[in-house]
Every structure is written in structure tokens, then in C-alpha cells.
């Protein structure tokens, strides 16, 4: 019986390998983000974001939402991301299937370049890969946000 199971496991493992043949698994190709942008973004992240969202971008379960792997962070709604930085976040809403208790403070004192850098950084750190957010995009959202 034990032998049968062993053989079966091997078979399943081989079958698994077979199915991946020709399409190696790898992280999505990072967008072309300059090192200078990432370095500036990391500095702001460390000063202003890390205490809640943590060094691994994992947040704090049920208190502070994770950034790593978050659909909103990597999504196409850049306006929403810029607004969260400008206005903070205190909505009781489900984020990727979880609720988070703590309010996020607004960071509207950051300038357009700084917001662009830190958002680009979090969209391209840990497992995240998404396009950059430009200072012009931040400026446009800020103009429309009261």
C-alpha cells in the first residue's frame, strides 16, 4: 500500500512538471522603473508608511491593510491611489476579502514628485509589479481633490 502511494506521488509530481514544461514560472516582468525613483520612493516609504504597512509591505492582519499583493495597489485606478495618499482612508470596506480597523492618516504634505515616487515604489516592491505613477498624474488628481 505504501509503495502504491509513493509511486502515485511520483506520478503526480512528474505530471506536474510536464504541465509546466515550456512555460517556466517567473515573476511578472517589472515595469521599467529607474533606480533613482525606487530609492527616493523607499526613503519616503520608510519615513511615512513603514510603521503601519511594515518592512515587508504585509501590513498588520486585521489592523493595517497590506500593500504587497494588494489588488488595489497594483490596479489601474491610479486616481484612487493618489486620493488615498491625499485624503487618508477611514472607510469600513472589505479589501481583498478582509476588513482593517485602523484609520490611515492623510499625507497631503508630500509634494507631487514625492507621491509619485512612493506610489511607484509600492507598486514595484515585494511581489508587486505595476506601471509608474507620474508627478503629472498626481498633480491632475490633486487639482480635482478637495
Amino acid at each position, binding site marked *: *500500500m505504501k509503495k502504491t502511494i509513493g509511486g*502515485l506521488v511520483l506520478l503526480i509530481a512528474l505530471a506536474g512538471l510536464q504541465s509546466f514544461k515550456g512555460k517556466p514560472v517567473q515573476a511578472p516582468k517589472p515595469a521599467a522603473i529607474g533606480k533613482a525613483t525606487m530609492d527616493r520612493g523607499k526613503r519616503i516609504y520608510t519615513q511615512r508608511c513603514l*510603521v503601519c504597512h*511594515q518592512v515587508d509591505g504585509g501590513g498588520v492582519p*486585521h*489592523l493595517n491593510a497590506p500593500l504587497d499583493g494588494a489588488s488595489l495597489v497594483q490596479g489601474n485606478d491610479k486616481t484612487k491611489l493618489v486620493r488615498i495618499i491625499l485624503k487618508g482612508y477611514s472607510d469600513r470596506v472589505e479589501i481583498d476579502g478582509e476588513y482593517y*480597523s*485602523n484609520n490611515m*492618516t492623510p499625507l497631503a504634505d508630500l509634494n507631487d514628485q514625492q507621491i509619485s515616487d512612493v506610489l511607484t515604489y509600492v507598486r514595484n516592491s515585494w511581489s508587486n509589479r505595476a506601471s509608474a505613477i507620474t508627478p503629472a498624474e498626481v498633480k491632475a488628481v490633486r487639482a480635482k481633490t478637495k
Partner: protein
Amino acid sequence: MKKAFQILSLAMILSGYGISHAKASGDDPKKKPAKTVAADADNAGLKLPTGFGALVVAENIGRARHIVVNKQGDVYVKLTGRVNGKGITKLHDADGDGKADQITGFGQYGGTGITIKNGYLYASSDEEVFRYKLDDKENVIDTTKAEKIISGLINRRQHESKSIVLDNNGSIYVNIGAYSNSCQERDRQAGSLGRTPCPILDSAGGIWQFSADKGGQTYGDGVRYATGLRNVVGLDWNQQANQLFVMQHGRDDLHNIFPNLFTEKDNAELPAECMYALKKGDNAGWPYIYYDPFQNKKMQAPEYGGDGKKEGGKDAIDPVVAFPAHLAPNALLFYTGNMFPAKYKNGAFVAFHGSWNRAPLPQEGYYVVFVPFENGKPSGKWEIFANGFAGVDNITPRSALHRPTGLAQGPDGSLYVSDDQKGTIYRIVYNGK
């Protein structure tokens, strides 16, 4: 291939059936061994003092918050969030090996608080407290009959859990946490000052006392027993002092809110996580003060004119123990059992969920500590009792494998610890001589 699978599955089902059947036949109480259960070979991954061992009672049962063990050794677990629609899980060990083999659920609400007293199981959601009548073996007689004794308690996301404990006089004590970090005009915002007087304290930021035996109570039926407590998750009734003891979660973000007054290191190390012995009418001082464990003083909060040097809170009580900052004490238990060595008798165990607000400095906590007590007062320094729950180096709150959340004492004197990260229930036993 498919057929081989079917045969295999059938064989597994049959052998599995065989095991559970054998276990059920071991349910005869006369055959149950009286000796202490065996610890797991790896002590469930925990580091413990010499002579102690640990075993996993159950795992992956959901976000296990507070726990209580009935006189038969069944564990009732309060879940935050529900599993299969149920907010309370009962773990039963039919064959006496210490491992739960019958797991059942009831209660339609998530929450944190759970306790047993005077023939009832009490459990809380984040707004209400319920109770269930127990039979003489402390089994819930009818799990569908929850008597709602308190409702309408404030839940505004932050510090929403309601912890509960009873005294010996028919009262139940409920923590109602402050829905704020430090009662600022704008919560957690840099430079925002505190509201005076803090309006939160009317309905939260304290411990409320209600009747344990009366249905349909709300704020008007309760008494604000103690105030100025930001958020209490761990609390217990000390039988020797006949007094309520609580663990406060201290405030966050001194550096982030007042970067000119407090460094990142200050932020990580201030304020203390405090244990308070409460009397009716006590004020622990939140949000106007915080406790500095290095100066051993109550300091004026920066939201109210403090600067890290100015003392405050002349009318506020002092803590009986000051622990390092941000460790997040989620459970308090006074040990009255006979299994552990004499030094543990009547002492306090505290389960620290583990920090996040110490970042970017290393995180701390994620362990259970012990504080010796004599005659209802701390009689020595606290020490780490059970460590290794996080199971990783360079802990972050997400990467921690387990986070201690609840404590309970079994009828044999075992100490149970719950984990709300992965849903493991641990049982710590003493096998030394």
C-alpha cells in the same frame, strides 16, 4: 489511473473510519487515563521552562480569540469572523490523548470574549454579550438558545472587541475600547491635538459593569466601573485580592504624530503596556497621560501639552506592572491550578499578541509571560514563559506563524493558549518532578 485513485480513496476512507471508530470506543470515562497527557515531540514548536511540555490540541480552526475550558476538559473557543457560519467552536477529546477529535460549532456571531461562571457560558460579539445554560458537566444544553444579556455596545472599528469576566457577586465586566488612538481631533494625524474633555470616555475607553443574570441590558443598565483605559483585551478576576485586573493596550505613534518631540526609538519603547488593579471609580488616565516605564512616571500626552518630560495624571492610578511598549497584551489569567510548580500558584500569565508599532525597530512580544504574585500583588519580576509562537526570525505581523491571543486553565491545571493567526490551540503541561 483513475481506478487506482478510486481504490486508494476508498482504502483511505475505510482506514480513516477505522481510526475514528476506535477513538469513539475509547470514550468510556472509566478507561480514561488520569495521568498527564504527553507533550508533542517538538513541544508544539514552543520554548518552555525546564519540566514543561506542550502539545497542539487543534489547528487551523479559524481566528481563535479567547478560550475557556470546562470541567471535563472541553475547550470553547470564541472566533472572530466565523467558520462555516459559526462563531464558537467546541473542541472535545474523546480518547484522552489531548488532541481534539470532535470539533463542533454554534453561535452566529464573531467576537472575542468567552468565559464560564455559575453554570453559564458567556460569550460576546463586538456589540453584545450572550449566555448559554450549561448542564452539570458544563456542556451547553441548547446551543440555539442564546440569551442576550447586553446589547448596543459601541463598535466603531478600532478596539471593537468586547472582553468579559465575572466577579463572585453576580456582576459581569465588559471592556469597551476607545475608538481612537489618543482622542485627537483627527485620529493618528501628525500634530492634531487632543479633544478636551475627551468625548469618547462617555461611552467607551473603560470597563463597564452589568448584571450577569439579567436579559436586555444596555448602557443605561450598566455602570462605568473604570475609565481612562484605551483598550483592554486581557482581563481576569483575581480571587485572592477579589479584584478586577486588566491589561491595557497603550497608545501608538508618539513619533509619527509628534516627530519633533519623540524619536523613532521613543516611538518603539513608549509607552508601557500596563497591568492595572482596578477599583470601582478608578481612572487610568487615557488619553491625557501615558506611562513611561523608564522614568516610572505618568507623563502628560503630547496631544494635551506634554513633551516627554512633563508629568501628568495626578488623579490617575499607577499600573501594578509596566511591560515594554506595544507588545499587545491580549489575555490575562491568574493561575489557580495544581499541576505547575508552587511558584506559579496565583501568579499571572499574560499572552502578548506581538507588536507592530515598534517598526522600523525590531518587533517584540509574540510570547506568553509569567508574573509571580503573593496575596493578590505582584511579588517579583516578570519572565518569558512560552516563546517561539512566531516561528520566524525578523518577525513582521504578517510573517508570524502564530500570535498568542487567549489563555485558559484546564481542570487538571494545564494552561491553554490560543492563536488567532492560524487558529492553533496549544496546551502546556508540566511533567517535571
